[in-house]
């Protein structure tokens, strides 16, 4: 009872604050008399005051100057508005199950648009080509690339590549050509749209944004392969559609349509490959450079997030300079960088990077959706029934066709073939989103006189897919009962699966057979031998283990400190029980920590795909552990006899040694003790110091 009323109270609170914000923003819009149309606030020295005009001879105590702050003010209001809406969205429990979060964002955008339209206000032109491509798009891409689960991605890499690249191409050309066919029919009044424009529209509209679908998948915990396919598609699709878009725009700009010869078409194809692959190479180079930089930053850890962001952004910008796909560059940079940077940066920097990235991408997405809403409620529309209906139809049809055709082929080469159900889900999860809208919005009007038609069509498709498909995909997934993933994480499973990996690699060696396990093994060897030595600071082979090893050790040392009062006979406790000497219980925290040692280190990227949700992050497991330990302090007294031999790093646990965080007897450990202690001030040491005060 109490919780329900609490939830209602929260909801009410939120509603009140939201309405106040709305009033405030509406007031802001209504209030301003003169609006500057330029992009930057054009600060004119007010001649009245300077010269002492005849009108205002008094000193005003209270003046309003809205023009000066208009743009940042409104942008901030939008973002705040959207954030409040998100809070409200999640407060009301049933809503997230019902519809994806993008729906709320679009609704908010439409609301803001309605307000602006109603108050007849000219919204600040926050979105033009350069702003979108330089400021709004990179954070989204960076966040996608950074949080990508590497191992499943590379395991399915072939299929993902095949599906994304060919799927985008097939969709773009298919939709474009079909629409061109439709445009030829005189009755629809569309004959002035030539082939190139239709192709361009096709490429724009096939930019898929399945974040909403991913959230649904995550919640329904579908199997990993399906998840990775959609994820990989969303990652690569952005890059590919933008490349296609740019190529088509370049074609359109070659003044006359008749001048395009086949050589240009071939050049277009070649350019596609150059742009794509060049982008990836660029990204990898930048990733390595930034990883190298972070190796030396342990004294200035405050700038580590800065390095990460700036280098990724730099890779994007450099690639864009050369007209190479900046999106792919940034993605490759993030993926490459992540592994090494995570080793090198301090814990706090790591957290900062994660949260800041999410925040930036959230802001960008919100702005884009708001802008989309503003455009919806506006005057720049052109409605043409035929075009719009056929667009929608072709989008659905071509996606289904491409899914089934491409997967039919790729299933022959896959060890895990995608079932019909899987394919159905994949074809249904083709939600369009912010990217297609942006591309439509940024069409140059001089080349596309019927730009408004495109915008309208794009908006209709987006609304349809996000609302209708987004809402129904959840029930569909549940109805079809797609194969679920196995979430159980246990040490046994880790060991077994690891054994399986090696076994498979070994058998394949014996057969002289090549597969991706071999590639992965070879890459890992190369990585360990060369790359990690260069890029990771203070690298002993597998320092990833040593670092988290020590983290684990701190946590366990805390526990040992708890039972340090009871230290009596350390090593003789369990030796006499023979075979079953280990049958006494290890504490759950220990098991947890061992599990973490395995999960995080030995099997480097064994982590399950983290929640692919732009809007929140999985809780930090370290925090959880620290809390657990604090809680367990109360109940720790009965664990007195479990120390000693069962802990690798807890040799005879004398009080004095505990004080110095007894490390395993490694050769060069002592010198590193100090730095590591400093590095973990965030979580472990604080607790430790508290405990050791006793």
């Amino acid at each position, binding site marked *: 009872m109490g919780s329900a009323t609490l939830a209602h109270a929260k909801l009410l609170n939120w509603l009140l604050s939201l309405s106040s914000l709305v009033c405030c923003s509406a007031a802001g819009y209504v209030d301003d008399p003169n609006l500057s149309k330029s992009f930057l606030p054009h600060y004119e020295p007010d001649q009245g005051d300077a010269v002492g005009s005849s009108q205002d001879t008094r000193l005003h105590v209270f003046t309003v100057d809205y023009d000066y702050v208009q743009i940042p003010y409104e942008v901030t209001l939008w973002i705040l508005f959207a954030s409040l809406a998100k809070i409200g969205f999640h407060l009301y429990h049933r809503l997230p199950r019902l519809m994806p979060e993008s729906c709320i964002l679009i609704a908010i955008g439409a609301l803001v648009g309605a307000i602006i339209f109603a108050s007849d206000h000219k919204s600040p032109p926050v979105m033009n080509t350069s702003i979108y491509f330089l400021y709004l798009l990179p954070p989204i891409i960076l966040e996608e690339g950074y949080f990508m689960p590497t191992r499943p991605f590379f395991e399915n890499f072939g299929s993902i590549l095949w599906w994304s690249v060919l799927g985008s191409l097939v969709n773009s050309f298919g939709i474009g050509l079909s629409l061109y066919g439709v445009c030829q029919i005189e009755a629809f009044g569309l004959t002035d749209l030539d082939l190139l424009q239709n192709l361009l529209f096709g490429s724009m509209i096939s930019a898929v944004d399945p974040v909403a679908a991913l959230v649904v998948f995550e919640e329904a915990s579908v199997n990993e392969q399906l998840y990775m396919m959609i994820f990989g598609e969303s990652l690569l699709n952005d890059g590919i559609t933008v490349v296609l878009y740019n190529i088509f725009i370049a074609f359109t700009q070659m003044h006359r349509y008749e001048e395009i010869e086949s050589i240009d078409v071939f050049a277009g194809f070649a350019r596609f490959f150059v742009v794509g692959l060049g982008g990836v190479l660029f990204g990898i180079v930048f990733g390595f450079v930034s990883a190298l930089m972070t190796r030396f930053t342990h004294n200035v850890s405050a700038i580590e997030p800065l390095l990460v962001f700036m280098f990724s952004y730099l890779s994007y910008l450099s690639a864009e300079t050369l007209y190479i796909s900046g999106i792919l560059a940034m993605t490759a940079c993030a993926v490459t960088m992540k592994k090494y940077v995570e080793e090198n940066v301090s814990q706090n920097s790591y957290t900062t990077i994660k949260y800041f990235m999410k925040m930036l991408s959230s802001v960008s997405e919100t702005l884009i959706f708001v802008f989309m809403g503003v455009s919806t409620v506006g005057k720049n529309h052109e409605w043409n029934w035929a075009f719009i209906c056929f667009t929608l139809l072709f989008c659905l049809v071509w996606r289904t066709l491409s899914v089934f055709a491409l997967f039919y082929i790729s299933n022959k080469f896959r060890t895990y073939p995608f079932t019909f159900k899987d394919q159905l889900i994949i074809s249904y999860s083709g939600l369009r989103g912010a990217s297609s809208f942006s591309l439509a919005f940024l069409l140059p009007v001089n080349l596309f006189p019927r730009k408004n038609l495109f915008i309208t069509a794009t908006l209709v498709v987006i609304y349809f897919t996000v609302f209708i498909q987004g809402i129904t995909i959840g029930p569909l997934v549940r109805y079809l009962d797609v194969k679920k993933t196995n979430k159980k994480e246990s040490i046994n499973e880790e*060991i077994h699966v690891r*054994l*399986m990996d*090696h076994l*498979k690699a*070994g*058998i394949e060696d014996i057969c*002289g057979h090549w597969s991706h396990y071999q590639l992965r093994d070879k890459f890992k060897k190369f990585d360990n031998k060369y790359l990690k030595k260069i890029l990771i600071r203070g690298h002993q082979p597998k320092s990833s283990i040593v670092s988290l090893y020590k983290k684990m050790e701190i946590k366990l040392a805390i526990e040992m400190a708890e039972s340090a009062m009871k230290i009596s006979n350390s090593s003789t406790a369990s030796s006499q029980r023979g075979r079953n000497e280990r049958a006494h219980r290890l504490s759950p925290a220990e098991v947890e920590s061992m599990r973490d040692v395995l999960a995080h280190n030995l099997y480097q990227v064994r982590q399950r795909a983290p929640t692919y949700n732009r809007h929140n992050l999985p809780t930090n497991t370290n925090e959880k552990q620290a809390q657990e330990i604090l809680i367990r302090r109360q109940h720790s007294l009965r664990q007195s006899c479990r120390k000693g031999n*069962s802990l690798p790093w807890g040799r005879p646990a004398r009080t004095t040694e505990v004080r110095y965080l007894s490390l*395993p007897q490694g050769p060069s450990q002592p010198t590193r003790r100090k730095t590591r202690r400093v590095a973990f001030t965030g979580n472990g040491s604080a607790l430790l110091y508290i405990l050791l005060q006793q």
Partner: protein
Amino acid sequence: RLCRQLCTKAMTPLSQKSSGTSDQLHQPRCVCFLCSKENFDSIPDLEFNPIRGKIVHAFFDKRNLRQESDGLADEINFEDFLTIMSYFRPIEMNMDEEQLDRFRKEKLKFLFHMYDSDHDGKITLQEYRNVVEELLSGNPHLEKESARSIADGAMMEAASICGPDQVYEGITFEDFLKMWQGIDIETKMHVRFLNMETIAHCY
């Protein structure tokens, strides 16, 4: 090296033949093809594999070779080799529930034999420790102590799944099956051969 060359040479013509009974294929090869442990040791890539010993051992394990006796064979012929390879068949689309179940059990049995080195039908703590130590042996900086404690932890966990209160002697095959329940072994444990029919004839 010899073994491997013979293996690869044997596999390719086998895979190119789209149909053929086992008699035809095996007869000419059976006689002149005998493999022993030394041949396996000479495969270069296998050196880096941490569980190399166990893999080679598995080839010679008589339980895997479906022979009634126990212990290790000294040499295997081609048919035995194929028998081992048949554990790694991928699943076929037309298998029904019962076949799938049997399939899965066979693969798991193969794995079980890899753990259970003393052939007593149970994975004891010491054997488990051996496995974990071997797995982690690729990393020189992780000490045996930690490997041991990880194995201990795993054993604790297995004990808690399979029967928390009694004195736990070892993981039996049923417990092993239980532990693997959620994991999709059919898709993990296979090697893609170019043609499967020849392998099927081993039965």
